């Protein structure tokens, strides 16, 4: 009897969670769908944001995400390579790991403060794509390192041993054998981080985002509009919140579609890889 109650509760929890996700997505879809059109995605906003599209925000998010990846991916993969392939002293490894774990725990608004204090003001990069990308890049660094480490560890040791036994140096082994085999895993694992970079608001609030840019960014030193910030700003600080409500929903739908779409692709690819591993 107790077992039935318990099992029902447990099943119910899983159900509640699924319903929550489903409910949120459904609601957003239903409310935002009517606004979505080719124009919405390709045209800039007009009439104080009450009409028109959100193209500059989409573009801004794309730039910021690419920038974050450009910063985070090389650094993350390199860190992971060091930790899995080269590092020997336990103290050093521990120190780096503590650093990574702590970095992972830093709240996004503190990252925003850091980005503001360091990139925008101290390095005088100003509020720009550059500052935003750097801040976001470091935000997702722990995720990328984790995913890369996992992928690198998954490459069988025998590959390395075979390579070394043929006289190939460690660096060449890593570069030509281990890394290519780990790359799919690294990329799918990092995609969750990339999704996060696209969706984060607090880190870009003071480092890159603007309410409205009349033209598309011309350089990395320009401010940009960005999807998450656009949602926030239209919903709380806009000039006509009620009138722009449908556009807010539309923007949310676009952002959610992009982020969840990327995540889903990663999940599917990962499942596929797991089933069809060559080794």
């Amino acid at each position, binding site marked *: 009897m107790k077992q039935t109650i318990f099992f029902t509760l447990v099943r119910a929890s899983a159900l509640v969670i699924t319903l929550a996700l489903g409910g949120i997505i459904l609601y957003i879809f239903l409310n935002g769908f009517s606004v979505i059109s080719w124009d919405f995605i390709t045209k800039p906003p*007009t009439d*104080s*944001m009450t009409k028109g599209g959100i193209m500059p925000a989409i573009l801004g998010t794309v730039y910021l995400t*690419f*920038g974050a990846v*450009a910063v985070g*991916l*090389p650094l993350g993969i390199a860190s992971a390579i060091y930790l899995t392939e080269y590092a020997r002293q336990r103290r050093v490894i521990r120190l780096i790991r503590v650093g990574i774990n702590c970095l992972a725990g830093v709240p996004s608004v503190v990252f925003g403060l850091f980005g503001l204090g360091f990139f*925008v*003001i101290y390095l005088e990069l*100003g*509020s720009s794509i*550059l500052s935003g990308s750097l801040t976001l890049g470091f935000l997702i660094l722990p995720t990328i390192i984790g995913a890369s480490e996992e992928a690198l560890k998954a490459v069988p040791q025998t590959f390395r041993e075979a390579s070394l036994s043929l006289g190939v140096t460690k660096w060449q082994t890593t*570069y*030509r054998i281990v*890394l*290519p085999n780990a*790359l799919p895993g690294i990329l799918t694992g990092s995609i969750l981080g990339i999704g996060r970079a696209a969706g984060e608001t607090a880190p870009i609030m003071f480092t890159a*985002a*603007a*309410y*409205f*840019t*009349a*033209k598309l960014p*011309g*350089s*990395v*030193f*320009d*401010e940009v509009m960005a999807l998450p910030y656009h949602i926030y*700003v239209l919903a*709380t*600080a*806009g*000039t*006509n*919140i*009620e009138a722009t409500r449908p556009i807010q929903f539309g923007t949310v739908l676009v952002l959610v579609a992009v982020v969840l779409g990327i995540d889903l692709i990663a999940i599917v690819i990962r499942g596929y890889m797991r089933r069809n591993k060559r080794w």
Partner: protein
Amino acid sequence: MNVIRKLIFGFCMLYFAAGVSAAADSIVIKGSTTVLPVAQGTLEAFMKANPGVQMSLSGGGSGEGIKALIDKTADIATSSREIKPKEIELAKSKGVHPVAHIVAYDAIIPVVHPKNKVKNLTVDQLGQIYQGNITNWKELGGDDLKIVVISRDSSSGTFESWDHFVMKKAKVTPKAQMLASNGALVTAVAKNKYAIAYLGIGYLNKSVKPLQVNGITASIQTAMSKEYPFSRELYMYTNGEPQNAVAKYLAFVKSTQGQKVVAKEGFVPLTEVQKVGKKGKK
């Protein structure tokens, strides 16, 4: 592997190239949410005539604009209040010399939910409400409902103006909700029969009910004549006298064309402009 390296390299090059060819003419405007519709409207109109200029606009509050001017992260600071002496000091210490340009006039209007029976309040009553001393609408002749005080957060010039006209340095009750913009206040009051808030005249629309203050209704006329007690100037501040594109823009805003936009957005133009716009018909 090589392909990826080339791609990454290519992106980096693109970025650097883009960075080097920075836009020659750019105007960054930050500040007041009250002035935001004016800024956005004039920006859009200005852009049509001057497509070569890169402009970006942000809200956040008058305080944000002035701070951006001081930190040199904005070219124009829009503000619905005068710059404070402390801010001028801070600016000078950083080599920034703020110059004020009045671009429009505004009236701050207390608003309530359309179903609220109260029509008129005195300045004193407003002060008591916002300090948290009057807590029920029935004390003011309305229904027996709790008063929900809605205010702007501290970066707001509108908040500062309210402080100047109504609070006179008394503290707003900590129970007040602090919202980020005029727009947010409109939404909050429209949905909440307990609420009271205050807005710039440009934000008035049918979803909220304006109150009279001391028996005077706010309108373009009463604001211009200063009969309405909460009339104020709307500013754009620049660092020193404006140059080039910034000067052109400011001249545009003050011109008849620019002022037509001001009227269209529901604010009070600098001079009698006979254009009655979509919003703000009083």
